[in-house]
C-alpha cells in the first residue's frame, strides 16, 4: 500500500478517538494554519495543491473558496456535503467512521481560510450511526479547545452542527442540500447565484465534500507540492476509490489520482472472481457512462476520463461481469433516477420515468430496436436541459448503456 494521504486506520473501537488521532499528529496541520499562517496563505497553499472536489464535479477547491466575497458583513457558512448518495460510492462513510477528526481538522482549515465561524455537516439519513459518532468526535474536539469560540486559544472560532438528511439522493446536489438544511423540500435552486455568494440562509456559503476537506490536513501538514505530485497535472493528490461489483476484493482503495482503472480493478481489487470476465465498468459512480473492457487502461483523473467519454465523478467503480444482463443494469439505472428525481424540472421529472416505463415494458414483454432508439432519444431530450446535474447524470449513463451494448440489448428484447 502506498503512502497514506488520508491516514486511514484499521477499523477498531479506539483509533477514531481524539487521543489516538493526536498521537498520530492530528490537528497539527490545523494548528499551523490557524496560528502561523494568514488565511490568504492557506488559500494559496490549497490552490497550489490542485485539489479538485471529491464529491463528483471536480471543481478546484481553492478556486471555489475564492468566490466567497472577502470582508463582507453578515454571516458565512461552511457546509460539509456528507450526503454520500451516488450509487457505487462509499468512501466518505469510511472517513466519517474511522477518521472523523480528520474531517473536523479539514473543516478548521477551510473555515479559517475563508473566515467562517459556523459549519454544518449534512449527513445522509442512512448514516444515522455515523452521525452519532460525529457528534462524539465534535464533543471531544470542543472539550480539547479545537472547536468552539476560541480555537487553539486564538480569536478564530468555529461551531459545528451535525444535520441528518432524510434519504434523498438529490440532497447531495449542493443547492438542494442547502434547501433541505433550511428546512424546505430538498430541491435544487437555479444557479446563478452560486452558494459562494448566495447560499445557506442567503449568505455566502462554501459547500465541500467530506473527502475534499479531509485532504486538507495532509496538504497543510506536508505541503502543497507533496500533495500535487501524488496526482497528475491538473488533478493533484491521492483519492479514495470505492470498488464494488464483480471483483475479488471489493473495498475502498486510496491511490494516486491518475492510477489506471485496470490497475485498480486487477492489482488492487483482485480482478473478477474465478470463471468470470468483465463486461463493463462504471468508473465514477452510477452517473458516469460505462466503459467496455478494452477501455480500462484509462488513467483515473478528471480530464482523462472526460476524454474517454465518461467521468471520474465520485470515483465509485462498479465492475459488471459477463453474467449480468445489460438490460438488468439498464433497468436498475433507469429505476434509480426515476425514483430519485426530485420532480422540480420538466425533463428530469417526466423523462426519467418515461424511460423507466419503456425499460419495464421491454423486460416484461420485449420490444424492438425502435424502443431502444426512443430511450436514446429521450436521454438526449433530458440532457443539457435540466435544472441540476441529476438529469445529466441520468441521461448519460442510460444513453451509454444503450448505445454501447446495443447488440446485446436488441437480442435481449427480441421476442
Amino acid at each position: 500500500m502506498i503512502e497514506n494521504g488520508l491516514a486511514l486506520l484499521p477499523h477498531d473501537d479506539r483509533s477514531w478517538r481524539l487521543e489516538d488521532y493526536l498521537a498520530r499528529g492530528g490537528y497539527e496541520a490545523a494548528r499551523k494554519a490557524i496560528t502561523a499562517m494568514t488565511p490568504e496563505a492557506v488559500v494559496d497553499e490549497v490552490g497550489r495543491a490542485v485539489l479538485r472536489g471529491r464529491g463528483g464535479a471536480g471543481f478546484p477547491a481553492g478556486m471555489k473558496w475564492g468566490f466567497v466575497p472577502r470582508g463582507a458583513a453578515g454571516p458565512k457558512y461552511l457546509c460539509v456535503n456528507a450526503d454520500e448518495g451516488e450509487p457505487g460510492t462509499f468512501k466518505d462513510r469510511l472517513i466519517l467512521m474511522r477518521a472523523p477528526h480528520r474531517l473536523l481538522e479539514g473543516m478548521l482549515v477551510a473555515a479559517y481560510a475563508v473566515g467562517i465561524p459556523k459549519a454544518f455537516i449534512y449527513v445522509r439519513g442512512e448514516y444515522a450511526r455515523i452521525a452519532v459518532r460525529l457528534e462524539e468526535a465534535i464533543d471531544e474536539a470542543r472539550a480539547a479547545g479545537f472547536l468552539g469560540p476560541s480555537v487553539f486559544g486564538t480569536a478564530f472560532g468555529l461551531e459545528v452542527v451535525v444535520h441528518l438528511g432524510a434519504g434523498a439522493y438529490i440532497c447531495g446536489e449542493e443547492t438542494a442540500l442547502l434547501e433541505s438544511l433550511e428546512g424546505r423540500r430538498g430541491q435544487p435552486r437555479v444557479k446563478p447565484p452560486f452558494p459562494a455568494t448566495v447560499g445557506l440562509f442567503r449568505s455566502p456559503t462554501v459547500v465541500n465534500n467530506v473527502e475534499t476537506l479531509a485532504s486538507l490536513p495532509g496538504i497543510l501538514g506536508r505541503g502543497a507540492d507533496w500533495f500535487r505530485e501524488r496526482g497528475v497535472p491538473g488533478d493533484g493528490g491521492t483519492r479514495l476509490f470505492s470498488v464494488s461489483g464483480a471483483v475479488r476484493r471489493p473495498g475502498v482503495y486510496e491511490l494516486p489520482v491518475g492510477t489506471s482503472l485496470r490497475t485498480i480493478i486487477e492489482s488492487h481489487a483482485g480482478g473478477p472472481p474465478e470463471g468470470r470476465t468483465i463486461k463493463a465498468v462504471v468508473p465514477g459512480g452510477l452517473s458516469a457512462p460505462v466503459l467496455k473492457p478494452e477501455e480500462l487502461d484509462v488513467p483515473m483523473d478528471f480530464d482523462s476520463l472526460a476524454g474517454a467519454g465518461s467521468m471520474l465523478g465520485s470515483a465509485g467503480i462498479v465492475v459488471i461481469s459477463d453474467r449480468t444482463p445489460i438490460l438488468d443494469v439498464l433497468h436498475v439505472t433507469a429505476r434509480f433516477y426515476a425514483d430519485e428525481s426530485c420532480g422540480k424540472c420538466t425533463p428530469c421529472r417526466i423523462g426519467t420515468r418515461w424511460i423507466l416505463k419503456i425499460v419495464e415494458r421491454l423486460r416484461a414483454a420485449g420490444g424492438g430496436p425502435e424502443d431502444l432508439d426512443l430511450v436514446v432519444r429521450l436521454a438526449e431530450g433530458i440532457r443539457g436541459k435540466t435544472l441540476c446535474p441529476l438529469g445529466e447524470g441520468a441521461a448519460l449513463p442510460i444513453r451509454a448503456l444503450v448505445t454501447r451494448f446495443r447488440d446485446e440489448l436488441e437480442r435481449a428484447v427480441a421476442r
Partner: protein
Amino acid sequence: MSGTKRVSLTIDGRRVVAEEGTSILAAAGAAGIDIPHFCYHPGLQVEGSCRMCLVEIEGLPKLELSCSSPVREGQVLWTANEKVREARRDVLEFLLAEHPLDCPICDKAGECRLQDYYDLYGRFPGRMFEPRERRAKMTPLGRGLILDRERCILCTRCVRFLQQVTGTGELGVFERGLGSEVGISEGAAVDNDYSGNLVDICPVGAITAADFRFKTRAWFLARRPSICPQCGRGCAIVVESVEGYPLSKGERRVYRITAGEDPAVNGFWICDLGRSGRRDIDERRHHRLLKRGEPAPGLIWPQAVAEIAARIRALPGPDRAARMAVVLNSRLTCEELDLAKRLFVDRLGLTRVFFADRKPGAADRLLITAERVPNAKGVIEAGFRPRLPSLEELAAEEVLLLFGSELAAHYDEGATADALGSVGSRFLFATHAGPLDRMADLVVPLAVPAEGPGTYINIQGLRRTFGRAVPPRQGVATGVDVLISLARSLAIDLGEAHAR
C-alpha cells in the same frame, strides 16, 4: 430611472438595449421577442423549473435559462434557432407525455400556454405509448377552486403566489419525482381574498374556478380593460364578456373579471372582491324606469330627466338653494363629479350637496383599502367636501336628487322612508335595485363603471382613465348623459364638450 446602467446586446440579430439586471426573457419581451415560458411570472420569484425558456448564448456550451440569466453587455443571443427550437420541442414532448389530451372539455382551451406553444413550437407526432399516470381530476382547493392534477405541469406558480404574494402558503408540492403533486395540507384549504389569481396564473387548465367552469369558451370572450370600483385601490381589471351571439334570458353577459396589469397600482393581481364585481354588472340591475316603485313602460330616461327638470324649474328661483338638495356618491367618475359640481353648486347655487357611500370595511396589507369607493380623491379634487346628510336635513327638502342608494346603508329603513316621505319630490338615479326604489317618485337606471368611460383617482392619488368595457344595458344612462341632459332641460350650458 437615472443611474441605472444600460447594456446593449443582440437578440436574434436585432440590437436591444435593456437595463442592467433585467432577465434575458424580460429584455426580449420588451423588444417584442416572445420567449415561451410556463413557470416564469413577472410578479413572482424565478423558479427555473419548466425549462421552456432556454436560449442560446453565443460562447456558452449549453443552452441557458432566459428567465434567470441577466442580460450582459455585448451578449449575442438566439431565441429561435434550430438548437433552441429542438430544446423547446423536447420540453413540450415531456410535458405532453403526461398531460391529458382533453382540450375539447378543458376550460383553459383557447388561452392555454401548453396548447398555444404546441401549436407554435411543437406539432410532432406522439411517441408516448406507455400508460400515463392517473391522478385526481377534481380536487377542491377551497374558495371555489378546483384542481385537476393530471393537467398540472408543476410550474408551481400557484404555490409561489401563496408563499410570496399573500404569504398564506396554503398550497405545497407533495411527494417527489413524477409523483409530485400540488395540494393542500389536510383541513387547510386555500382561504384568502386573492384566491382567484391562482386561476389567472395557472398556465394550463389545472386550477379552474367553479364560477367559470364549463360556462363558456375562452374564444367567445371579448376582453376589455376597466378599473375596479370595489375599493379605493382602483385596480386595473379586464372585463370578459360575451357579445358574439344573442343572449337568452338570464344568461350571463360578463363571465368573469380577471386581473389587469398596472405596475404602480396592483401589479398583476386583484382581489376576489374585485372578481365578484362581475355580478354587479349583470345582476339586480335597473334597466327600466320606475314611477312610484312601479315599472313605467314606454317612459325613457330623457323624458324622465325632462320631468325632473320641470320640477326643479317649478321651485322659485331665489328659494331654490334653500329647498333642494342632492346626494352624490364617490363611485361617480371625475367627469360626472365635475359636471355635478358645475350644475348643482356653480349654476343652481345649491348649498346642500351631500354624499352617501358604502361603509368602510377592513383594509388588508395587500390591495384592499378600508374605503370601499373608487373615487374618494376625485370627490375632493372636484371641489366637494363630502358629508353624509342627516335624515332631518333631508326631510325638510322640497326636491331631492339621490345618486345611488347608499343612504340605506347608514339609516334604518323605516326612518329613511319617513324622512323621504316628507320630501316634496324624490328622484333616484341608481344602478341596482335597492330599498330606496319604492320611496322615490322616479327611479332612473344608471350605468355601472364598467359601462364607462370615466376617470378615477385612487387612494394613492393616481389618476386612471378607463373606457367602455361592456356596452351599457339597453335603457340605462351614464351619469354624464343624465347630468348634461338635466342641464340642457334647465337651459344651463355646462360647456360639456370640455367636460368630456
